[in-house]
């Protein structure tokens, strides 16, 4: 029988993920693993871990890894990539890590045009700590620190990080994908590969935003969370390639 | 041998560069030199002060923070008032009388009045005020021989050409003349 699908073996360990059932983090890490493996970069890759649920990549990822302090992954990646430009370096960060406590680090790294890749998993909540409001929590969306839903009067509006990064001149590739459906997942993987290719060609800063879910803290069944993503999240955080300097040339 | 020199004036009068040049020259001659700059938060125009201690191995200066000095170079009135009490009895005061209008009220020190800016204009080297002052100081204090200081000037300004060197040496000599009189 022909093998039509197999798990990546060089980038992922054959263990259960640390994520909750139905969580798209595991989908994200799988397509990243596939991309790295298919590009023959498994041995050359350094994965900078953030703080949050995504720290659990530690359990499944098979390759060089370093844990950063909360929000500092782009600064750590800067130190690595500048010192070892031949390595494929990427951070994988959640919304609290990247758009709140690490807002300065991500913007500055993007602005300097650091030649590594940032993969941002946007699920609008602080998952690991139990579902507090994130900078990306939608207006009206409930969390443990806004039980009546986000009120823009005192809590402001959800941050569209990709669009903010798009306001900078240096970044080379910026794209947002939704992992809510197979088409989005396939496109996301292509986008990740493109970003990694640009990185290995030293073209510039590459940024991928992945819309993900958090059934546990959203208080939804996994399928309902996918429906919510399609009907609500994707309307505010619109998927698509935001900037591709490689396509312009 | 150990000698501590305080140099003070406005920021921009070349206080720090004069102190550095003194320390540098002493250092080149194999003496121990400590140079400590002190200035306020302003980048320009504030108070500027530096302390230079020169010593040899037999008699070392340890502290960069000295109460009393053997020589005081005062480049403005405020510096003269502030640091004159810190000049040791028998010490040497070099004051820039192109700027300072007040008289020092001490009779237990040697006083060398150097109209540095006027002399600098006279020798057509307006930047050389501090070389004139240092010329006067070294002649009076004998802490570095005039000839040694001059060969250091030659090295320092080598890249600027012989004309600049000669002009600076001439300025230094003007200061030496005033220092030797005392």
């Amino acid at each position, binding site marked *: 029988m022909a093998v039509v699908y197999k798990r990546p073996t060089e980038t992922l360990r054959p263990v259960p993920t640390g994520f909750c059932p139905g969580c798209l983090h595991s989908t994200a890490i799988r397509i990243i693993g596939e991309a790295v493996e298919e590009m023959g970069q498994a041995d050359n890759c350094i994965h900078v871990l953030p703080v949050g649920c995504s720290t659990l990549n530690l359990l499944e990822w098979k390759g060089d890894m370093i844990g950063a302090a909360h929000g500092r992954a782009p600064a*750590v990646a800067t130190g690595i990539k500048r010192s070892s430009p031949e*390595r494929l370096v990427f951070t994988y960060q959640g919304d609290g890590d990247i758009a709140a406590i690490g807002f300065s680090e991500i913007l500055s790294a993007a602005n300097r045009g650091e030649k590594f890749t940032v993969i941002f998993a946007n699920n609008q909540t602080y998952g690991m700590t139990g579902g507090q409001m994130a900078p990306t929590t939608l207006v009206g969306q409930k969390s443990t620190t806004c039980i009546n839903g986000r009120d823009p009067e005192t809590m402001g509006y959800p941050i569209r990080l990709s669009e903010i990064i798009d306001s900078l001149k240096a970044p080379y590739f910026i794209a947002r994908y939704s992992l809510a459906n197979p088409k989005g997942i396939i496109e996301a993987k292509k986008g990740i590969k493109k970003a990694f290719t640009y990185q290995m060609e030293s073209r510039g800063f590459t940024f991928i935003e992945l819309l993900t879910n958090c059934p546990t803290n959203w208080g939804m069944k996994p399928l309902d969370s996918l429906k919510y993503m399609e009907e609500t999240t994707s309307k505010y955080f619109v998927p698509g390639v935001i900037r591709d300097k490689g396509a312009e040339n | 041998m150990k000698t501590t020199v305080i140099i003070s004036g406005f920021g921009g009068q070349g206080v720090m560069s004069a102190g550095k040049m003194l320390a540098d020259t002493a250092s080149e001659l194999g003496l121990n030199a400590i140079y400590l700059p002190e200035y306020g938060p302003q980048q320009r125009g504030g108070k500027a002060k530096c302390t230079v201690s020169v010593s040899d191995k037999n008699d070392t200066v340890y502290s960069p923070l000295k109460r009393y000095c053997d020589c005081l170079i005062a480049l403005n009135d405020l510096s003269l008032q502030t640091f004159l009490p810190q000049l040791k009895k028998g010490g040497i005061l070099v004051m820039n009388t192109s700027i300072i209008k007040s008289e020092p009220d001490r009779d237990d020190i040697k006083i060398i009045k150097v109209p540095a800016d006027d002399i600098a204009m006279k020798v057509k080297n307006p930047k050389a005020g501090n070389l004139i002052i240092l010329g006067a100081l070294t002649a009076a204090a004998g802490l570095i021989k005039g000839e040694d200081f001059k060969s250091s000037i030659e090295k320092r300004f080598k890249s600027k050409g012989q004309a600049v060197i000669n002009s600076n040496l001439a300025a230094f000599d003007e200061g030496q003349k005033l220092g030797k009189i005392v």
Partner: protein
Amino acid sequence: MAKILMKGCEAVAEAAVRGGCRFFAGYPITPQNEIPEYMSRRLPEVGGTFIQGESEVASISMVYGASSVGVRAMTSSSGPGISLKSEGASYLSGTMLPALIVDVTRGGPGLGSIQPSQSDYFQLTKALGHGGFHMMCFAPESCQEIVDLTYNAFEYAERDRNPVIMCLDGCLGAIMEQVELPEMKEIHRDKGESWSLYRHEGEKRDMHILTPYLMEPQLEQLNRMRAKQYLSWQKNDVKVENFMTDDAEFICIAYGVSARVAKDAIIMLRHDGYKVGLIRPITLVPYPKAQIAGLDYGRVKGIIDIELAIPAQMKDDISLQVAGRAPVYEYGRTGGVLFDDVEIYGAVKKIIDSSREG
């Protein structure tokens, strides 16, 4: 080699480069700006990397990243910035990565003053960062000593896989003195293979994880290992200077610029017939405990802690070793106000005279 005149801040930077530093990230703060300025010019000359970070926290995280791939990396700051770097310091120690951190201390607390002070002893020796860890801390007194200690700082940092701190007060950062510079060390980056993510090009090997996040039993094991390491520092790595202590009845204890001021004061006091000496801790961590505990308390009548800090921050460490066998006095100035040789002369004299009367 010929001696050249160098500013303390430049001396620490040049010595680090000669000691193998090839990465610097820092953020502007007075009175240490000469360090990043110097590094921005110097590192590209030797194939190194300089980055002006967007913040103190980012800068030390960049150092953490560079160190993780086996590069000798350094950052510098002053009190308020060192507070911010405490996060990174804790991560470096927790992840077992070497680094060099320089603190050019100024008046505190708060934004404080930009004038020299020795306000960070507590911070550097007791708790720079969460989680309970120590870093070796060197406190040079002169530009030459800055050079000598910095040149070898990475050897300690890599031996222990732990950051090392250089404590320079603002005065030392600013003074210029003659220094003799050592030769440039040859750097073998692959030396870091065993502990870093560094790989030779195309090399295949097992994954390597550098993580500040450990399971409880491993974390306990790490902390137990560190505790043993700290004991071994105490045994093997203490550096201390004794100045005129052989017959001294009163011992001053001071580090950094305060020790130099005290030396001139002691020479004056000796001239007046006072039997005074100085113990100068060169390592603040490990602290010279045995040297203080082992004094002849039959002869020594009193200990005087001299610091540019009020309250005197080193006093508890001293008192623990003196253990009540002699009174421990303190004299200091703070907030960026400096003492000079004559002030210390007067202060020590007064302490001795009044203790004799009492």
